[in-house]
């Protein structure tokens, strides 16, 4: 499953990040590393972005980008 499949409040583990190189770098620096726990905090209405939490960092990202992040539910 991918990140947008989670419901608000659910926690999962990052399995893989399948994005092109520049974005991959940025995501790594923001803490998206495989094996890390990720919590979906909320989804914006009108198919807006997601708010997720990795460790102590909260991050906003669009569903299209989030769909490239594979997770598995704990």
């Amino acid at each position: 499953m991918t990140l947008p499949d989670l419901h608000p409040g659910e926690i999962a583990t990052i399995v893989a990040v399948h994005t092109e190189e520049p974005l991959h770098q940025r995501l790594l620096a923001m803490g998206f590393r495989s094996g890390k726990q990720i919590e979906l905090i909320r989804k914006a209405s009108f198919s807006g972005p997601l708010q997720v939490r990795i460790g102590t960092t909260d991050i906003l990202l669009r569903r299209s980008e989030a769909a490239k992040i594979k997770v598995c539910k704990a």
Partner: protein
Amino acid sequence: MKRIALLGMPNTGKSTLFNRMTGGAARVGNWPGITVELLSGKILLGSDMVEIIDLPGIYDMHGFSDDEQVVRHFLHDNVPDLALVILNATQIERQISLLLQLKQLDMNLVVLLNMADEAKRFGISIDSKKMSELLDMPIFLLSAKYGTGYPEALQAIGKALRYPTPSMAEQLRSQLEQDGHIESEMARVLKHTVQIPARLSDNLTEKLDRVMLHPWLGLPIFFAVMYLLFQGIFLFGQPLQTGVNDLFGWLRGAAVAPLLASLPAALQGLLLDGVYNGVATVAAFVPIIILFFLFMAMVEDSGYLSRAAFLMDALMARLGLDGRGFVMMLMGFGCNVPALMGTRVMRSRAMRLLTMLVIPFSLCSARLQVFVFITAALFSPKAAPVVLFSLYLFSFAAAILTALLFKGRFKNNEPFVLELPPYRFPTARQMALRGWLEVRHFLRRATKFIIAGVVLVWLLTHLPPSAAPASSDTLAGMIGSWLHPLFAPVGINEQLTIALIFGFVAKEIVIGALAVIYGLSGAALSGALGQQLDWVQAYSFMLFTLIYTPCLATVATLRSESKQLGFTALSIAWSLVLAWLVSFAFYQGARALGY
């Protein structure tokens, strides 16, 4: 002179530290990407002068965005004698990756774990001594905002500066190719030195966000907050402005006029009706400017801008922009120039250009002055704030329309990923600094453009000497009647046309120019405008002022940021055309409806 560079991820407090070290005035805001330019200051450290440079935040040394390249080039071309690496202590578990990258570069480093106050509040404990041993570099916990831990850090900085400057390895990039082992190194260091509670105890942010980012209430709250802010600015600011204006009027009669009485009449006129009236009218806006930017500082520093990006991204995506573009538009409400520079955080050139095309429609504080003055002159005290708010809506509408029309030409698929910082509240010192910065900026513009502008207007309205002042025989009258066919259909008379021409240079001049053209200032000018114009004409004039080119500084920034003359020309031409069309539609429409 030795040189210290401040390095770190966005929003970690580099500018706050810079201000603390240099007493300087870098812009601080709770938004990743506030600093996009190099800023330097000099201080006396021990017995030596050292130069301190505030760099834009970078996520990692491979970064591709324009601001990250600024940093890479800087490090490559001038190796600093010391790099201060500023990390957010509350996010140490991920930010340490940047530190490990920098460590590979063989630079002199001192590491500052900033936001120690927040780390403590969130229950995160860091053993900086141990970390220092493990990584073999000086590491300190401090709070740049409140100053705890700062003296110790400063001492270490002075000590580190005595080491010789390493010569930077030739190829920065190739050095960084092998990032592979960073992850295991991160884990090793963190395991021994950092303890993070399973659940962060930042209840305040959680609770506030539950309301502010509520799926259905979020947007209405956003607009309500905006409305209240602008209401507040008008309600508090307008009486202040009138008060200052009266003060200047009194001063003129009591001191300035008698002082100049011995001068020849023409010179007296130039100084009193030109320079004094013009400048006093503009200077009366200083309290509103301060008030406005105190509000702005609060909003920027609170972290609410990132929330606005979250709420608006879905809409912005349909316009070919993203949530950051919306935040830039909001920042443009202060001044368009830094907002344009803020687009450097975008990587896709197409999106950057499209964002730069819409930012000039943001109703900046200079235009706000014009509107405060005219709405107060033409509308009842009850209606005026609503009229003002409607202009903000027009500002958004112009931006949205522009994005819709041009998004095809600036197609992009820039990813949208943004950090959401916790809510923070500015200290009184931060607010005072920001207010002072803006006043200084305003006074600089005033001395540069406004005085020259009002003198020029006075000359135009009084030359040739044979003509009656401000009559149709003066130069201004001639220009006005020459442009009359263009502006009559939108209800803008000849006097206002002259003001608009000068408004191209800076909007602050508009009211000053009107003061000179009518030979009146303050309440008398309001009265004259109220008699000569009806509300339809005045509103049409305000729409035109809102939409056409903001000012020369914006044009120059568009040019330097886009590095494209064609794009700059497109921006100017489009805004002029749109301004005319909107004013035309409004004016003719209102007249057709019988107003």
